[in-house]
């Protein structure tokens, strides 16, 4: 069981994600954005950073990188695909998740721990968590404000695809305080906060482990 961690030029959280996956017993290999395949990986993580410098628009160039073809195929095959922060933005641009992430309400970069509530278990990201569980996870983004058309939001809510929501304060103005969501089948998921940054007590929190463990469990073939 291995996970491919995609590296675009400008990606910077790839080593952190590999380390955190290792902590939950998952082996991971870095794949370069020009690669044409995922090396037989059972799942994919698109980590945080600034793919292609975030030029034009976050994720707008990354969706055209060759690696996105096998990522899209893997998603279509029902295998787990996770986007963290910039990876979430790329998934939205690539059409693997609906909506988009725009600039924070206060037009400032936000790097601090925030509280996130688990609102649905219907995803590879939250299957092992409990609904109502509140996690403390670092947020680290300028474009973390989730937007989508009203009917799309209604449909996401009705189908329990909003899997994580900011708890208490809404730090970036995200619609319905959405912090993470999933595809209809639940195998593709994206979130703005960084679970890998909350994976060791010495770093201040281990609340991210439950999400990474969910993802790890989802790698086992059905």
């Amino acid at each position: 069981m291995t996970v491919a961690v995609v590296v675009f030029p400008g990606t910077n959280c790839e080593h952190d994600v590999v380390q955190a996956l290792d902590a939950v017993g998952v082996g991971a290999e870095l794949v370069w954005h020009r690669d044409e395949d995922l090396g037989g990986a059972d799942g994919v993580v698109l980590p945080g950073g600034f793919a292609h410098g975030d030029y034009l628009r976050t994720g707008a160039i990354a969706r055209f990188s060759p690696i996105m073809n096998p990522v899209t195929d893997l998603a279509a095959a029902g295998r787990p695909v996770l986007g963290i922060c910039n990876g979430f933005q790329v998934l939205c641009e690539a059409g693997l998740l609906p909506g988009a992430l725009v600039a924070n309400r206060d037009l400032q970069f936000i790097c601090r721990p925030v509280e996130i509530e688990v609102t649905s278990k219907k995803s590879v990201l939250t299957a092992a968590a409990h609904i109502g569980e509140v996690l403390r996870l670092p947020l680290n983004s300028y474009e973390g404000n989730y937007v989508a058309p009203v009917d799309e939001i209604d449909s996401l809510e009705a189908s329990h695809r909003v899997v994580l929501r900011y708890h208490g304060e809404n730090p970036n103005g995200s619609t319905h305080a959405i912090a993470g969501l999933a595809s209809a089948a639940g195998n593709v998921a994206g979130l703005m906060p960084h679970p890998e940054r909350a994976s060791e007590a010495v770093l201040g929190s281990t609340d991210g482990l439950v999400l990474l463990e969910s993802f790890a469990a989802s790698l086992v073939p059905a």
Partner: protein
Amino acid sequence: MSLHRTLGMTDDEYALVVDVLGREPNEPELAMYSVMWSEHCSYKSSRAHLGRFRHDQDQVVLGPGENAGVVDIGDGWLAALRIESHNHPSFVEPHEGAATGVGGILRDIFTMGARPIALWDPLRFGPLDEPHNRYLMSGVVGGIAHYGNAVGVPTLGGEIEFADPFSKNPLVNVMALGLMRREQLVTKAAAGPGNRAILLGNSTGRDGIGGASILASASFEDGDAEKRPSVQVGDPFAEKKLIEACLELFSAGLVVAIQDLGAAGISCATAESAAAGGMGMDVDLDAVPVREQGMTPGEILMSESQERMLAIVAPGAVGAVLDVAARWEVPAAVIGTVTESSELRVFSGGSLVANVPAASLSEDAPLYRRPVERPRHQDDLWNDAPPLPEGVDAGKTLLSHLGDPALGDRSWIYEQYDHMLFLNTVVEPGHDGSLLRVKGTDKGLAVATDGDAVRCFLDPERGAARIVAEAALNVAVAGARPYAVVDNLNFGNPEKPEVMWQFTETVAGMAEMCEALDLPVVGGNVSFYNETDGVDIYPAPVVGMLGLADPMPLQPPRLDRAEEGMDLWLIGHEGGDDFAGSAFSRVTLDHVGGRPAAVDVGDVLAIIDHCVRLAQAVPVLHDISAGGLAVALAEICIRSGVGAVVDCDDWRLLFDETPLRVLVAAPPLADLGIDDVLVQRIGVFGGDHIDFEGAGIVDLAEATDAWYHALRRPLSVVG
């Protein structure tokens, strides 16, 4: 005006160029000398004094002179550190000026073979009630965030001060830390005739021409907006790719040497690299990728376009180097060859456009022993002690201090910086020193930056000694032993004898305290000409202190770990009435005068030892600095969400800023194991007030509100 004067060169310096070359220089040659002999590049006014700093201790691998200082932290790891200023560019264009400062310091680190792992940004601005100062600060912080976050290197803090003289000359300093395995160390010396020089990174444009000589080595006058084209424009994405490509080149052993392109661009990098190797170099400007048509040879040579490196590569490795660069999507071009002659020869269109002895650009630079004179006003300043009032309400005074932008919550700044990337950050910004773990070892690295411009104005020697001691204490309370120092000496116009007095006194004070702590100074930067309209800044030395925590405390002290029922202790030195240059003088009295106390060198090592030891055990260990005991305690109470009752009926002991004092929160009846310096239980944590029995009381919620909005309130006002 003659060309050399336009380029910022004196007539005597021009004569020296003619002497070195044995002929008149042509235009590109003169441009090269003007930049390489500028104050910024040659340290011509400061060099004579910098020999006072020692760097011969065992842990030092490379001291000043390379792109960054390097120290051995054990277990096969080396740490590279460096500090720089980008003051004038940030005044002209705050966002890009600050951003490119970050880019430049990172290149200094990865040029050594190290991966940059953290940044710090000491900043100085004028008071925030001026709209222009708010514009400058917002722009600078935004520029640091934009570049640092996107380039993928966390920013772990810095420090900030506000004072009038910085209104027209803000200071933007930046410190970086890198980590490498011992065998990865690379230097700039271009050995081996026949080796190729490969230019890596961005294409070369007209941006930033004369940045070092025009911006960094001259004073300012109002209306200097026309200098804006001399500010470079940064591209963090290009730098990120360049970092990854270079680190891969180093680990594959593909480069002989490498040098970053900073001030004076290609001319400086080729000359420095060749001279360091005792070689010469032939450079072909036609091979340089340019981003605009019609650039003259002089412009290509002098351009300070960012995100470029010059790698020296054996002929057989050129193909492999170009392949690595291509994989990371980094432009690369062979632009030169190392030669046995000692000359830097530059060709364009097949003809020789410059031919100078490579070493002359650095080694023959002028050296000035500028006149030094103690300012006439100095005695008046010392005699003008702060007029302390009789009765002071400590509660009200504390509230006004907490609401002051220099004393309140800094999270408005550091929450705009990614300070967690790489999963190393154990103590984040907002504490005394930041602490990073070194993965795979039991060690940690603590870093603090410190400055104190007002005290350095009042007494540069004592002020400078105090910031070294304070920085040492800041890493010690994170559990780290002070290990190495870099310094950034920000001063006014060195042609004024009074400014040179401030400078030499500062160097003396810093050198003395580093000596007392047996601390090597492994690098530094001197920024002169911080003068606008004839007004010099306060002397503003800044130190960057690296501490080694071995072992790193797994639960290091933090400001937010005090709990109801814990005892509050004061350790270190007796308090006194050290108010000259204090926050109380500034905030309450609006007064600048008097003579700050000296640091007691005899106690400093003992107090640091106690802090390093206690950091393994106690939940809170907090250095007392600006705002005195009252502000230090309030920071603990606010961050921990618990009040305190303090047995102190003399307000002066609450706001006095006698150095070398530390607050400790510890479970009741703890034995701190101290018998050689002051140790005194002065209160207990609990309740929802900060209660100085008899001297005043503050509601914790009110204190928290004032502190939280100290920066947010002024900076949310649109300028």
